[in-house]
């Protein structure tokens, strides 16, 4: 028991507000994702079952091939559960419901021969967030359960970098860095920027060296202070913006997961503070203040 109590690294006390804000981002993303971003699973409802190739998960759970009613139910259930989860009530029940609907929907998308490699980590976010229980955006109490959930999400997000470097070495071999892997990606789905880089092949070649090095070094983030952690996360966002500019691929769920490194409740304070200051300057503070709890909260603070 004392050994377990010493595991402070895995259980850092973190404000519950941070989990509440990350939940908002994650569940909003689920809605955007199933409706707009990742719709290939939806259309599998119209594909002939002859194309169905069950994954390990589907063989274990006897999941059927997609049909039009199934994909429609899964999509609607993902959205409905995410909307309920966004209210913050019954976070465990609604959170698990989102997890089941979204994971099944992704399964349908991936069980036709092509698995996207940017979505496995988001599963952990959906499983970790309900475990915290009730958390509101104004709750500044620090909780070890909140810290654990965020730590799990952080570990998984960084593991995707490190393990994708391992996968490059496993499937491409050490010569991957000198291969034409990124060139191939640019030829297949290049953007304007990618087309320009094709004329300067050494840029793509060096990009591979830089990419593999950054991925192998990514776990360093757990050994630096918070300030540097935030800078590194900023660096990763920059990297993903560059990748998007080159080959129009972005790992959207992963980008949401990286938020687990950031002090979201502090950003919210700063943003609301600035907004309140703007309103005071305008002299129309009363008209500008939204009704409801925020008004009451500010009134008690004065």
């Amino acid at each position: 028991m004392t050994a377990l109590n010493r595991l402070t690294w895995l259980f850092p006390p973190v404000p519950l507000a941070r989990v509440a804000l990350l939940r908002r981002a994650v569940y909003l993303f689920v809605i955007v994702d199933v409706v707009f971003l990742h719709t290939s699973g939806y259309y599998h409802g119209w594909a002939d079952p002859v194309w169905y190739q069950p994954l390990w998960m589907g063989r274990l759970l006897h999941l059927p091939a997609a049909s039009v009613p199934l994909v429609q139910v899964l999509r609607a259930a993902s959205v409905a559960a995410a909307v309920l989860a966004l209210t913050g009530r019954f976070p465990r029940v609604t959170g698990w419901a989102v997890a089941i609907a979204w994971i099944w929907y992704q399964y349908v998308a991936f069980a036709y021969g092509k698995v996207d490699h940017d979505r496995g980590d988001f599963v952990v976010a959906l499983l970790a967030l309900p475990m915290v229980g009730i958390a509101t955006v104004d709750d500044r109490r620090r909780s070890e359960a909140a810290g654990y959930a965020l730590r799990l999400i952080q570990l998984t997000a960084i593991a995707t970098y490190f393990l994708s470097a391992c996968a490059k070495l496993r499937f491409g071999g050490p010569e991957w860095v000198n291969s034409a892997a990124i060139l191939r990606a640019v030829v297949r789905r290049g953007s304007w920027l990618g087309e320009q880089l094709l004329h300067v092949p050494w840029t793509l070649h060096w990009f591979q060296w830089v990419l593999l090095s950054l991925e192998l070094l990514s776990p360093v983030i757990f050994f630096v202070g918070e300030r540097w952690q935030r800078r590194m996360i900023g660096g990763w966002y920059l990297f993903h913006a560059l990748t998007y500019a080159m080959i129009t691929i972005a790992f959207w769920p992963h980008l949401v997961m990286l938020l687990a490194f950031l002090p979201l409740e502090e950003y919210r304070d700063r943003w609301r503070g600035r907004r309140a200051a703007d309103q005071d300057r305008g002299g129309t503070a009363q008209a500008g203040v939204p009704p409801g709890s925020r008004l009451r909260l500010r009134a008690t603070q004065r």
Partner: protein
Amino acid sequence: MGTTTVSQTQPSDDVIRVSPAGRGWRLLLCLVLTALFLAGTAVGQDDWWPFGPWRMFANATPPSGSVISLRVEVQVDGDPAWQIAPLTPSAVGLNRAEVEGRIPQMTARPAMLGTLADSHARLRPKAPPWRAVRVVRNEVLLTDGVPNGATRDTVLAQWTAP
């Protein structure tokens, strides 16, 4: 309230702890996830999802090989010309990579291509129906890591409506 004043000076008193049992299963979950992700990367394949290897762009393409892509071509009613069909989920229920991955099955059973015509008819009922479908492999040839301008086309499988 007394507790509020205390919490301002000693925030650590405010921490909501996790019980030893809670720590135990959380630690176990962390270890199980770690083991599954590590195993997936070491020996897993794509069908291990979500634990499969993160092999985005992991394959090494030889600098003087070729970049292969497929296209599906169709003949519509009363037009003998082959037109390039959209290989997208909203048109045929499947995307390009999913069709690409089944080349051996399609060459063995060209009737699989017929299911694309069926799905297309259901997804795009107003579009002219497909009478014949064929899969063509297109190779962009590379020299020293740069496309050299040459391409090569091969018909892999063909289906005609009965």
